[in-house]
């Protein structure tokens, strides 16, 4: 029986399954980037993504088509991460950013230097700050979506992001525009790295 011959209900289910599968595939890079940013350890991150995909597939009926699948998946992954963390402690979390450095695709030459320092600083943030910073500042979720994912108030998301940025600036030694060189932290860090290598 071809798809066109199938009863309407079966065709609809197949189309929904296909759309859901395609949605998962499209979100996997982002999901994995979030997992690595949370746990740091590559194996742990891939285990987290795998567990998230299994749970998402098993609970596909609870996903509302048209809503933000990324936020839905982040919620599952985050809950899985903290559940494992409660069971195994900090062994599921990288604290120096080394693993994310090894995994990441090569960036532009000047970017590779600054990203190494930035990742080390990012990994030192409390995970509660790091997760909302990643969600809102990089993955494209809104404050409201991040608040829903973390089951906290929007104001708490904002204050955690504010503290995270202040902590990063402190860790990177950026106290003001004068530390930003030509106008970016990237330039400042590249400059510091270059000076360090020369000395």
């Amino acid at each position, binding site marked *: 029986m071809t798809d066109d011959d199938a009863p309407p209900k079966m065709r609809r289910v197949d189309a929904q399954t296909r759309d859901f599968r395609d949605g998962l595939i499209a979100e996997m*890079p*982002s999901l994995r*980037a979030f997992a690595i*940013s949370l746990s740091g350890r590559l194996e742990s991150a891939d285990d987290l993504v795998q567990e998230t995909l299994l749970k998402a597939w098993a609970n596909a009926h609870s996903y509302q088509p048209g809503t933000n699948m990324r936020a839905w998946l982040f919620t599952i992954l985050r809950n899985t991460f903290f559940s494992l963390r409660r069971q195994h402690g900090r062994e599921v979390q990288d604290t120096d950013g080394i693993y994310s450095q090894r995994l990441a695709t090569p960036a532009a030459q000047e970017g590779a230097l600054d990203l190494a320092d930035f990742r080390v600083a*990012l990994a030192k943030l409390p995970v509660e700050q790091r997760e909302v910073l990643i969600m809102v*500042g*990089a993955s494209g979720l809104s404050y409201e979506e991040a608040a829903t994912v973390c089951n906290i108030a929007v104001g708490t998301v904002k204050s955690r992001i*504010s503290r995270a940025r202040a902590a990063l600036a402190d860790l990177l030694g950026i106290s003001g525009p004068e530390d930003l060189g030509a106008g970016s*932290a990237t330039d400042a860090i590249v400059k510091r790295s270059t000076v360090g290598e020369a000395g």
Partner: protein
Amino acid sequence: MISSSGGEDAHDSMRGRDGDPGGGNLRAQAKDATPPADPSNKDYLVNDAIGKALQAHYRSLADAPLPDRLLILLAELEAKDSDDDR
């Protein structure tokens, strides 16, 4: 290609709601949480720099090739569902 389409999608989201590649999402939403977005404002410049580094970090991770085991897992789940339907 699965990995490339996903990567592009991740990039789209990271450009922010207004298409700004430089941490626009964070800044655009932070109007009531941080000082006004004055380009000469000290905090604005620092936050802008951190936003760009954050997005570069995330983008490089999202661009990394997906491990086969995750793609195989999805294929297996889909095949299992197809078998169950029969």
